[in-house]
């Protein structure tokens, strides 16, 4: 078991109270597993990913524990997490395209990062060059400024830098969202290759785009309004989902070949609840066509089949 998260709650401080962005997340990621984390904007997926690396000043750890390779990860302690960051857990941030300091050359950004972790640069440099070549970049980029690189090149540089010390867990936050279709495919397939080559042991790929996850992820975790809705192997989520939210979400996605005239798709009526004061019980019940009395109680996130868990009274019954 590579990563084990148990009952993690992370809230945002705001003047009007706590925003319950991650409200009780429990899941495991196996060695070598690429887990996709999907959901709509504001469902807490980025918060969950970031909280495993670094909580920023607005985020507040409430409860729960995180275990990585059998060691407890002190996610609530910013200073103690330093020991784990970059080497054990690492992140490709959202907006990775702007994550590179525009006034520094790529080479000096890499050197700074390594020095901050007391890693001898000479020892890692050949590996850095080798990996840059693997993603289709020449050694030359180390002497370039970020502005001289295209979006896809910058994304690849950040991917290589983030995974340089072979972390056990890599969180990739919306890495393919800002890219063109063909670049998107290349970058997404590189994530898989990084795992296959053992650069990273396991990975959380956060995106709102389920069809990208279906291409690269082993399992998919769907979040809704701060809660986990469903986790299952990618095929099961797409073709045999058990949670009504996942089912409706997938049926609202058009594929090439689906035409308006022939097959009318429909969205999900309503909008997600505010996380400032979320409703009790199942948070999807106001938009759910199958809701019944019992949904006023909160459904547990529990197994409904092999490697398949969902939080819905209908599937549990």
């Amino acid at each position, binding site marked *: 078991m590579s990563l084990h998260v148990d009952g993690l709650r992370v809230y945002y401080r705001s003047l009007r109270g706590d925003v319950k962005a991650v409200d009780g997340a429990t899941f495991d990621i196996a060695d070598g597993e690429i887990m996709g984390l999907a959901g*709509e*904007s504001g469902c807490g997926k980025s918060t969950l990913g970031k909280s495993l690396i670094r909580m920023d000043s607005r985020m507040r750890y409430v409860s729960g524990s995180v275990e990585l390779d059998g060691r407890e990860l002190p996610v609530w302690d910013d200073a103690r997490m330093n020991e784990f960051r970059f080497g054990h857990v690492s992140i490709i941030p959202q907006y990775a395209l702007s994550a590179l300091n525009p006034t520094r050359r790529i080479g000096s950004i890499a050197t700074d990062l390594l020095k901050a972790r007391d890693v001898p640069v000479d020892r890692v440099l050949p590996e850095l060059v080798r990996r840059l070549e693997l993603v289709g970049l020449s050694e030359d980029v180390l002497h370039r400024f970020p502005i001289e690189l295209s*979006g896809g090149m910058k994304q690849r540089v950040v991917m290589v830098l983030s995974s340089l010390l072979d972390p056990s867990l890599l969180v990739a936050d919306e890495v393919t969202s800002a890219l*063109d*279709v*063909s670049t*998107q*495919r*290349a970058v*997404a*397939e590189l994530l898989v290759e990084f795992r296959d080559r053992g650069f990273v042991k396991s990975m959380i790929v956060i995106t*709102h*785009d*389920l*069809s*990208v996850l*279906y*291409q690269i992820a082993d399992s998919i975790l769907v979040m809704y309004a701060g809660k986990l809705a469903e986790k299952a192997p990618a095929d099961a989520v*797409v073709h045999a989902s058990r949670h009504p939210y996942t089912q*409706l*979400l*997938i049926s*609202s*996605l*058009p*594929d*090439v*070949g*689906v*035409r*308006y005239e022939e097959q*009318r*798709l*429909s*969205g*999900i009526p309503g*909008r997600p609840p505010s996380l400032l004061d979320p409703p009790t019980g199942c948070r999807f019940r106001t938009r759910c066509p199958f809701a019944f009395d019992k949904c006023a109680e909160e459904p547990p996130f529990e197994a409904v089949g092999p490697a398949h868990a969902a939080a819905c009274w209908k599937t549990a019954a």
Partner: protein
Amino acid sequence: MLSVDTCCKTYRVGAFGGGELLAVRDVSFEVAPGEVVALIGESGSGKSTIGKLILRLLRVTRGSIAFDGVDISTLEGRRLKEYYGNVQGVFQDPFSSYNPIFKADRVFTMLRREYFPGLTDSEWHAKLGASLDAVSLNPGDVLHKYPHQLSGGQLQRMLIARALLLDIKLLVADEIISMLDASTRIDVLNLLGDLKSRGLGILFITHDLNLGSYISDRTMILRRGAVVELGSTERVFGNPRHPYTQSLLASVPQLHRRWSEVAPSPAASGGGGDGGPLVMVEKDHYAAAGPATTVGG
């Protein structure tokens, strides 16, 4: 209705405008009433530039754009205002289309001042109500609210409602649903479908092939400012002839097919004919002539 004829647009680039960037190269197409034309291209392909040219936010460098037979570059003053009564645009980011200081329904009152100064309050409210109804919005939910109180889907629908108030004939929809969540974007797409069946022509600009194929009747694939493939949506997506279109279709993530089942097209790295003249490959299906284009078959 709208006819774009060998249109070119050059941008001045560089520190003193010394360089030239050819953003749109000899693009020709037409939009008929009740027709959705999808303009699909990657970033930098010039798709938004074409939208801006049609909305007269930019001037064409060469070629012409005609609406109902009148060249739009000659329009001034009252004639231009009339043109905007027929053609309106909605853009990508609903949050930056509104001024956050004012209430969101100010977009309607501004339009009333310009185009309907003679209407009484009750006539105006009836008209506004009908327009909001057409985009499935409840007036009580959206009027007298600030932009931050509304969702992206609601804001985007309000902009479409604003365009509909004018009885427009052509809507330029530039990435209007790219910022919306998956569960609401399909509703806005279906809305466009309804408007189309009422006779509205729509130029649907997008980078997303799935969305383009769902809603459009005709598809144009744009690459580096030039049209590489043009035809009925069924034919372009069902039987792509240009290597660039083929590579795009191989890369688009889908839920019924894994990437591993389709080999990446050799043209993915930029091969294939580019900017050549369009030749007819079958009925209602044209592709740019290039060394690699498979004509016939």
